[in-house]
């Protein structure tokens, strides 16, 4: 009998929230496209609707339409070796449709390269198509340590960004901005509490639940929705624990996932691990949004500069390995499954070195987050099977 993923009720609520989010985009008057690691707080403070092409890419991946939409971009000369989120989203622009009927046109694009330099190139392409300006928030890479000059640099650009927004939309409302920041911190706190539920043995949730329910913290951070939604989700997980319900029946192994999920194979992975009594209790991806701003600081802009410079993907290998070891410790995991993601070079290059730096055994599987054409089920299955066997001994 195939083990079935135990869906959380909150996931239904999440779908409604995200449907609402996408519908809102159709009526929005002020629209900015934004990367997943950028400080969205500025946009919400100015009542600008933030469009997340990466979330849209994930949605296309999860609906298994990655190759279909990517092909529209590939026909126009965009190489199959480029990031599949970018290919899918560009493909939707050319196809003039998507699973959510396309994304609204940007007035401007806000790219922050603290997650990759891919987004800079991708947004340049979109900017040329729509003749919209691209504001780049250029974040120095923290290979070893954060230099004070890095924070100064990012901070100065945040002020430039305010000026950029004010030129378009009028005065920046500082009191509104502070309210947004407060909601952002609250949302992140509630979200973090949800992820930390994975510490419980057996765990009431898997990283697949986390993947499915991460969209609100990414897209709606700074609004009143995440604090409410994640508190609700936390209550459901508390109930599970109280009623003795675990995400994986008879949890025997606790595993950490590294990298973006394989969106078009979520159920397959989930069931594969479930059948083997392995629970993926946490992942490095959803945990990347748990950085807490210190808003008690007098200067919130400085705090934002620090927070957005220190995110997971913007760190050197030693620091990344340190964080992974922190997660291994927090969630008490037995092993790590590392997704070598063809579409995400900064997330994937260095993984072989990271394997040597972390405290538990690990395995690398080759895949892509949205492009199912490069996924080899038998290869991945063999690797994972062998890995789980090693955990038994």
């Amino acid at each position, binding site marked *: 009998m195939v083990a079935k993923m135990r869906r959380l009720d909150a996931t239904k609520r999440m779908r409604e929230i995200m449907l609402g989010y996408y519908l809102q985009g159709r009526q929005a008057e002020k629209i900015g496209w934004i990367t997943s690691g950028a400080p969205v707080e500025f946009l919400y403070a100015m009542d600008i609707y933030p469009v997340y092409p990466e979330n849209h890419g994930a949605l296309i991946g999860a609906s298994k339409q990655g190759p279909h939409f990517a092909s529209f971009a590939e026909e*126009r*000369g*965009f*190489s199959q*070796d*480029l*990031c599949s989120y*970018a290919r899918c989203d560009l493909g939707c622009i050319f196809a003039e449709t998507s699973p959510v009927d396309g994304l609204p046109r940007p007035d401007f694009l806000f790219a922050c*390269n603290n997650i*990759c*330099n*891919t987004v*800079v*190139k*991708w947004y*340049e*392409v979109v900017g*040329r198509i729509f003749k919209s300006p*691209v504001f*780049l928030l*250029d974040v*120095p*890479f923290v*290979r070893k340590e954060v*230099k004070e*000059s*890095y924070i*100064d*640099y990012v901070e*100065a*650009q945040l002020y*430039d960004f305010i000026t950029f927004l004010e030129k378009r939309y009028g005065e920046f409302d500082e009191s509104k901005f502070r309210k947004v920041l407060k909601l952002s911190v609250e949302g992140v706190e509630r979200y973090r509490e949800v992820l930390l539920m994975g510490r419980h043995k057996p765990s009431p949730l898997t990283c697949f639940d986390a993947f499915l329910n991460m969209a609100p913290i990414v897209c709606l951070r700074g609004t009143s929705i995440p604090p409410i939604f994640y508190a609700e989700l936390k209550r459901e997980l508390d109930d599970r624990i109280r009623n003795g319900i675990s995400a994986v029946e008879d949890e025997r192994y606790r595993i950490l996932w590294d990298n973006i999920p394989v969106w078009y194979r979520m159920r397959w992975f989930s069931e594969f691990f479930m059948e083997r009594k392995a629970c993926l209790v946490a992942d490095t991806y959803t945990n990347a949004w748990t950085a807490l701003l210190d808003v008690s600081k007098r200067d919130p802009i400085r705090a934002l500069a620090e927070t957005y410079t220190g995110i997971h993907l913007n760190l*050197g*290998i*030693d620091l990344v390995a340190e964080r992974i070891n922190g997660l291994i410790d927090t969630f008490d995991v037995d092993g790590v499954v590392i997704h*070598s993601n*063809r579409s995400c*070079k*900064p997330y*994937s*290059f*260095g*993984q*072989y*070195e990271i394997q*040597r730096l972390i405290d538990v055994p690990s395995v690398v599987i*080759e895949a892509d987050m949205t492009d199912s054409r490069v996924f080899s089920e038998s290869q991945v299955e063999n690797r994972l099977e062998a890995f789980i066997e090693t955990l038994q001994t």
Partner: protein
Amino acid sequence: MEAVRGKKIGYLCTFTPKELIWAAGFLPVRILAKNQPVSLANSHLQTYSCSQARGSLERLLKGELDLAGVIFTRSCDTLMRLADVWEKNSAMRVYNLEFPTKIRDSTLDFFKRELYDLKSTMEEWSGRRIGREELITSIRLYGELERTLKELFEAQPDYEIVLKAQSHKPDEVLKEAKNRLSEVRGSERDRGRKVLVTGSVCPFLEITDLIADAGFSIIDDLCTGTRFFTFETPKNESEIASIDDAMEFLARKYFLKAPCPTKNYENDGRFSYLLERAKDVDAVIFLLMKFCEPHFFDYPQLKEKLEAMGKKTLLLELEFPVSPEQLRTRIEAFYETL
């Protein structure tokens, strides 16, 4: 000074200010992949990284590189990660220079601060201070070398000497370049159809030879070609008076380097630069390294704009080892279509 000159400092990206390395008494040596298959690097870097990254790492792991240290200059995601992989697998010192991605007046000060940090690092590595004299001498030497190469390329492209300039002593290459220049000066530039060859790294002379052999007269926008020495210098080097002047000069000079797709420019600077350069050519060859995201993102829209100008284009995707014979047919066929 000469005793330390034996020590070499490697760099991969041409946005690395060699002037500071040379001024510290080191010889800057560009690390380039060889035309050989990769085996050792496979357990350190995935196969979906470009040949330049994998091939350079392969050379390190094979023990082919005798370097005291390596400077990784922020350009693409691959090199950013390669710095750590490199450090984990060698005894060399590794330093990362955070060159801004965003090239604007407003980001210049940050870069200048980074250059001061690089200067201190070079001083620490060499155990000697970089004084005003050393710095100015180095800046002038490179400036003269770059201008000579530019003049030489206008008369007759010479890909062998530009490769040499990336790894040999600049004073010696300067002499050689001057000799070459006096040999070719006045002689007519090769005729034939003009082609702009644009792309990233192509350290194999066979390929530019192939293009020339097919009958093309080449102007290039390659990182191993003219982009290595093309700068719009901000002011005359003789006006540099102090160390701070010199640092300011270097910061501005590297901001005014021939544009690269890893950088973000105002008003789509790279596109306008290339479209301008393509005005008088008959065709454009994109010589791109497989998996090079920055170039491949620019490619479709650039191609479209070039075609709108009436230029024919050809895309050659490189993965090392390359077999020149396979490329020959495609280049010759392309020539025929013109």
